[in-house]
Structure formats: structure tokens, C-alpha cells
């Protein structure tokens, strides 16, 4: 089922940071991994990903380094920084609050505050 793209855009930063939380990755790998973990529902475009990554690096949320893949290829890997982890946590809380509120309005009942 195709999801409205605008739903994804607000949470892309959070998802990318989550992806590299446990493991450093390079751009194409992130798109691939996101696709796998979402059962192909989230198809992130390169045009969205790379500006986002470079911007996160400027804000010191991620750190990049280069690794030689084979004789000619040099890949740029991204790792999350301490600041980035803080941002991830913040976005996650924000997201939980948002989704709980939406759920409440749609289905009625009380809002569950995050623990």
C-alpha cells in the first residue's frame, strides 16, 4: 500500500538516526535497510537522504568518515554522535506524543503519556 509521502517527511530525520544508532552505514545502505525494515513501504529517495545527511553533519548530529571499499572505491560512512542520540530521543518522544494524540482523536479514549 502506497503511503502519502508527506507522512514520511516529518519523521525521516528520526528514522535515519535510528538506523545508524546501532551501526554505521553509508547512504545507499540506509535506503536499502529502511526499505527492508519497513517491508518496502518506506522508499526513501536519494534526493531527500543526502541533503538531510549533510545537514545533520553540519549540525554535528552525525559524523562522517571514509573507508576504502576496494581498490578504487571510497565510501562515506555516517555514525551518530552524542548530540545525535539526544536529538533522536527528542524526536522519538515527540513522535510518540503525536501518534498517541492522533490515535486518541480517531479512536477515542485516554492519551497514554510516554513512560
Amino acid at each position, binding site marked *: 500500500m502506497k503511503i502519502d509521502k508527506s507522512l514520511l517527511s516529518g519523521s525521516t530525520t528520526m528514522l535515519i538516526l535510528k538506523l545508524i544508532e546501532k551501526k554505521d552505514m553509508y547512504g545507499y545502505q540506509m535506503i536499502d535497510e529502511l526499505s527492508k525494515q519497513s517491508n518496502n513501504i518506506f522508499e526513501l529517495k536519494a*534526493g531527500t537522504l*543526502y*541533503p538531510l545527511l549533510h*545537514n545533520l553533519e553540519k549540525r554535528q548530529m552525525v559524523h562522517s568518515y571514509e573507508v576504502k571499499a576496494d581498490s578504487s572505491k571510497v565510501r562515506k560512512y555516517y555514525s551518530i554522535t552524542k548530540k545525535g542520540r539526544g536529538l533522536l530521543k527528542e524526536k522519538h518522544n515527540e513522535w510518540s506524543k503525536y501518534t498517541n494524540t492522533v490515535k486518541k482523536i480517531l479512536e477515542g479514549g485516554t492519551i497514554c503519556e510516554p513512560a
Partner: protein
Amino acid sequence: MNQPDKIKAYLDKVCEQVRFRKAHNSIRNELNNHIIDQRDEYIQNDIDEEKATSKAIKQMGDPINIGTELDISYRPKIQWSIIIITSLIIIFGFILRYIVTKDIGYTHNFELRNSIISIILGIGLMTLMLYIDFTAIGKYSKAIYIILVLLTIFIHFSKFIFRIWMYIPALMILFPVIFSGIIYTLRNKGYAGIIISVISLVIPIIYLLIITLKGYSGILIAEIAFMSLSCFIILTTAVLNKWFNKKRYIGLLIICISILLITAAATLLFKHPYLTRKIPYMFDFVPHKSINSVIKIIIYRAKLIGTNSFPSIQEMYNHLYKTDYMVIYLISKYGWIAFIIYITIFTGFLIYAFRLSIKQKSVLAKLISQSILITYTVQIIRYTATNLGFPSFIKPGNLLFISYGNTAFVVNMILMGLLLSVFRTGEFTRDDKKLSTKNKFIQLSDDKIIINLRR
């Protein structure tokens, strides 16, 4: 159009939108890898190469869009706050020099004209340095070092050119920055790196001492000592930051031993009877005996706010050689409040700039910016301390942007431009990769003989 050309055309379009040229290589490489990965996946799904490439490129999206978005992350920023503070200091210095020379009775329009010329020249050079790629200091440090030493030698032997030897103290202000470039080249070389750095400092020290001993009043032992002090502080910072990749305390030990050896050698040298006679003139002991008693009186009698009319201007006239004692003059004329303001402005400026320097990501950016700030700090501390009377046997030297000394002013402006350049593009620079021992001039690899002409 063949496949690599299509990809290149796409990447060219992206990079056109990114104004910061130095980022282009990295962006090209990253996006190229992505396109190739995507293409290879399509090929694995039985799409032919040509179609796969086109599809992969299309998948990337509009190149102008991506380029414009990337451009946002690569906007170099100029530290306007530093420029503003510097401008204030320069204006303040200009006014102060005017007041001092008016009070003393100098009516040299000559000085005024030279001041204006040097301010304009300084601003021009500062702007030029601002847009220069500061990483050149790291890349060409050895060449710059050699040029500087040769230039000093040339000046020394060109005595026939009017007052050209006066440029040597100004060049000495530049040396700590060049020295930091040498340290950068020698980093990762461990203890050997530290020792070679010390040697690269000792060579100019020896040479400068020789030309001083030959009777130049253009260079004083004090200038050499303070230049060396700045350099040793920079070296110590490098060791403490583990940029030489070795244990700190052994590195510090090497530095301490070097300082002791140099000081011991210098002391023994000065004990030589021929030289002992010359010492007073090298340190300018003689003229400054009386300025210290004047300073003591001023400090004792100065008010918090307001003029203290003793000693009189005429008494100070003999000692206020141009603008060597402006701070104590300020205290005398306006009270301690002027001193407090002076200290606050300079300290604030240095702290702010040091914080920006520490935030830099690359070792080169840190080294260069810290070396410039250390040079400034040593200048300021020396001037302030000697103005307050201690140590009594050292000339105050140059006060950053304030005291008269056009060449020094211009050189300090050059350093300021370099500093702003580091703050402008420092976050986008990466240090050179560690030189592996495999990167020798000649190496054998894959049945081939490779001769490395780079580096």
C-alpha cells in the same frame, strides 16, 4: 553518450548549485557511488547496463533540487562578531594614538598618514587572507618555512635598502603560525616529530641571535624570546592534545629538556665578556631604568576614575617612546577604570576566539587558529605586564592593533584574516589521511613498481 558521461553530466549539474567548491569532490564521490550501487542492483535484476544507468540516474531525482539543498549545508560563514570587535579595537587604537601624540606634542602628520595607509593595507590583506584556502599552510608548510628563513637572510644582507631590517620583527610575528604548519606535517611521527619540531624552531632562534649579536637594534633578544615562547606553547598544546600520537608526559619532558638546554646555552653565551657588554643594549636596560620609577609612581597614585596629574606629561614625554607605554598612560590620564575596560575588551575577544578555535573539527584548523591566538595573547600579556612595571628590563613590544608600528599592524591583520578564514571554512575541512609507511617514494605492489611523486 556513454554511461560514465551520463553520470558525470548529472553530477556536474548537482555541483553547479553548490557554491562551496571544496565540497564538490566529496559530493561527487558520494553520489557517484550511490548511482553505481543502484545501477548494479538493476543489472542484477536483468536490466541492461544502459537502461540501468538511466534508471539509476532518474531515481536520484532532479539534480538542481539536490544541489540546491546540499548548497544550504555548505555555506561558509564569516564571524562578524570578531570583525566588529577588531574594528572597535583598531578605531580605539587610532584615537588613543592621536590623543597620546597630541598630549606629548608630536606634530608628525607623517605618522597619521602612515597609520591610515597601514589600516587600508591591513584591511585589504585581511580580506585577501579571508578567502585564501588556509589548508595551504598545512600542505606547503615546509616550503613556506624555507621561504621565510631565506627572506630573513635576504633582509639581513640587504642593509643598503633603507631600514629594511625593521621588517624582521614583523616576520617574527608570522613565524608561530608557520611553525604550527610544520607541527601539522610532523604529527603522527611520534617523539621524532616533536624533536624535529624543536629543531625547526631552534634554527631560526640561532640565526636571529647571531644577527642580533652583530649589533642590530632592529631585533632584540626579547623579541626572539617571546617568539620562542609562543612556539613552545603551541608545541605543548599539540603534545597535550595527543596530536603526535604518543604519551603526553614523555612529550612534555622532551619540551622541558629542550627549553632548559636552549636557556643554558643562551646563558653561557651571554657570559662571554664580549657579549656581556652588549646586553644592556639588547634588552634596552639603560633607557628603561627611569620609566619604571615613573610607572611605580603612576600605579601608586592613580585614581579609579579621573586624571592624576603627577607625573606630568612632560615627565612622561621622555619615556613614551612613540606608543610603548599607552596602557600606563591611560591609567594615568583616565584612572584604573580605563585599564579595566581595556582588559575586559581584550580578554573577552580572546576567550570568544579561543572557544571558536577549540570547536574546530580538524587538527589543522585547530593548530592554525590556536597558534594565531597564542601569538596575540603573548603580545597582549607582554605589553600589559611591562606597562605595569614587571618585568622591568623588557620592552613592551607591540600591542595588537593599538600601538604604533605599521608593519606589525599589517602583519597582525594578515593573521586576523587567516584566523577568520579558518573560522569560515574550518568545519568543512578534513585533515590529510595518515601517511602510512607504505606510501614510500618507491614501492612494489602487484608486480608493479610505483613511484610516488606526490608528497
